[in-house]
């Protein structure tokens, strides 16, 4: 491996990118998103009213007034009237944007007593106002008929059911968005851009010309890797230094980032080796990304896919990067890093074999 040769090849990649700077624009755009998030964080963290999207009315028996409600359901919020037994059997998950109304019927000397326990989302009882504006007027007739309603309201968090799922808006913490931005930058710089440049070189025959020059195939591959990893690291550094500068001092962040970048470059090199044109290579890279996303979703539903997901290095890089951004001091990543290292090493060997054997031809 000759450093002088690698330097010439890297300078060629840099000059090429300089002549066609559109590739840098996406990284710039992602950095701008990070900057906007960092500067607008105080606003997004301010406690406020979470508007109720739907309300569950859970009842212990059927009643005429409930039938009336069922016939006069509002457009907003969405109201569902369900039987308590059904709820307990199916155990639905309540989102923080959903409200809850427990209904209990009790026969007393004064007549039928109805106890309502309302549970509101977030920390503001006013979130349920839109529901009450519809609910109470519907019951006026029944109140006049002697039906007694007792009403008590508490936050949803205090209810018997724990929140098992968070809403998208609550999930969008700076750490999570930061992790997603990091992965997008890495996928773009290390996989998509590498695939695009390499397959273009291959299609035009430039790669063959370089391979027939005194530069070794391994030197061409190393130069490509170093250039794309530098681009990826620069993009990641900009994003992390804006969003979570503290993570930069944690080795897990660096190791996870470098391993992810290397893995993605290997995937990219294999893709450009398998395809003959830039267009088909770009399409295959996109398919890889979509297949990855599909696998991540399916692994939450089927055990077979969970096993398959464990064989992808991305499944380790996401939690490791997220953990290193969120609370690196509580991160114990030995097994994750080891698995990721093994998988990336496997990809590296495959990419090297493919590229040196037929990737440049």
């Amino acid at each position, binding site marked *: 491996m000759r450093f002088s040769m690698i330097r010439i090849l890297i300078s060629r990649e840099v000059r090429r990118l300089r002549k066609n700077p559109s590739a840098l624009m996406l990284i710039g755009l992602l950095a701008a998103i990070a900057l906007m998030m960092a500067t607008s964080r105080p606003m997004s963290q301010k406690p406020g009213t979470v508007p109720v999207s739907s309300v569950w009315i859970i009842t212990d028996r059927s009643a005429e007034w409930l039938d009336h409600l069922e016939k006069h359901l509002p457009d907003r919020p969405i109201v569902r009237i369900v039987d308590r037994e059904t709820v307990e059997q199916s155990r639905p998950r309540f989102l923080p944007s959903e409200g809850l109304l427990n209904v209990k019927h009790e026969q007393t000397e004064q007549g039928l007593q109805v106890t309502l326990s309302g549970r509101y989302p977030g920390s503001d009882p006013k979130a349920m106002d839109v529901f009450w504006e519809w609910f109470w007027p519907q019951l006026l007739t029944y109140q006049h008929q002697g039906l007694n309603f007792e009403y008590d309201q508490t936050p949803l968090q205090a209810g018997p059911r724990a929140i098992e799922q968070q809403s998208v808006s609550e999930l969008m913490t700076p750490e999570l968005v930061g992790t997603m931005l990091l992965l997008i930058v890495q996928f773009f710089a290390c996989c998509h851009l590498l695939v695009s440049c390499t397959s273009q070189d291959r299609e035009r025959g430039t790669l063959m*010309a370089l*391979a027939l020059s005194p530069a070794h195939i391994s030197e061409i591959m190393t130069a490509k890797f170093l250039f794309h990893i530098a681009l990826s690291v620069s993009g990641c550094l900009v994003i992390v230094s804006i969003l979570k500068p503290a993570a930069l001092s944690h080795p897990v962040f660096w190791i996870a980032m470098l391993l992810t970048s290397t893995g993605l470059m290997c995937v990219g090199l294999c893709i450009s080796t398998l395809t003959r044109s830039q267009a088909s290579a770009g399409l295959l890279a996109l398919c890889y990304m979509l297949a990855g996303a599909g696998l991540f979703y399916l692994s939450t539903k089927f055990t077979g896919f969970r096993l398959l997901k464990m064989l992808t290095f991305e499944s380790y890089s996401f939690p490791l990067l997220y953990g290193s951004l969120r609370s690196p001091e509580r991160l114990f990543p030995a097994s994750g890093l080891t698995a990721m290292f093994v998988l990336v090493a496997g990809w590296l060997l495959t990419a090297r074999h493919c590229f040196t054997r037929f990737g440049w031809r």
Partner: protein
Amino acid sequence: MTDAAIEIRDLVVRFGRFTAVDGLNLDVRTGELFGFLGPNGAGKTTTIRVLIGSQRPTSGTVTVAGLRIPDEFERVKPIFGYVPDTENHIEEFTGRENLELFARLYNAPLSRIGDVLRRLELSEAADVAVKAYSKGMRRKLLIAREIIHQPRILYLDEPTANLDAHSTELVRDLLRELGAQGVTVFLTTHNMEEVEQICDRVAILNRGRLVECDTPTRFVTRHATREVRVQYERDGDVCRESLDIDDEAGRDRLAAIIRTEHCVRLHSQEFDFHDVFLKLTGHSYS
């Protein structure tokens, strides 16, 4: 010890059941301008691919400048230049930047860039991006790129394709000059005139097999027919005859026709490389 720059022994290249090169044996001497001819699909490009190391042979041995291909591929790379039939420039770069990159890779002096640009009359367009070049300019830049490191062996696939008459002469002169400097030039072409004009030796390949390999002069001696074609009128009809003037009967018949008939056309059959090529490759339509 032999002075052969390229030695090919029993070369076989198969792609599945298709045999592209079938037992080829060839020696190309150092400093020779060697023409490699053959119809489409004859195996010329496959042979060049084996020579430059981008195609592994199925069997046989190939030695370039005493180095075995593909085992010593990395050692042979700085020795040769390869001008492919399609351009493979870095389109975003200017002509000078393309040459600069390859000069650096070959560790050639950057001062040679100006020389080769001048030699191929590309100085004026040197600082223009290659994507703005015409086909002919691209072709010349490709040749410039491959001679910048002063290779000992130069492979050219259709070197004068897409070139105008002036540029064609320029390239032919350059190739003659390189040959005189001791550079081995191995070129494939379909241009028979080019072969006759510049090649020291010519090999004709057909269906992966070597049909004939000799100097253009010997080709002329061997394949030129001393024949006269005569066309004359008799009773309003047009008659044609081909007469072998090496044969006494043929000569007598010719004399008789000239004496007694009304000759319309009379011409000698000269050597035509094109015809010879067609005859040897089994595509003759005579």
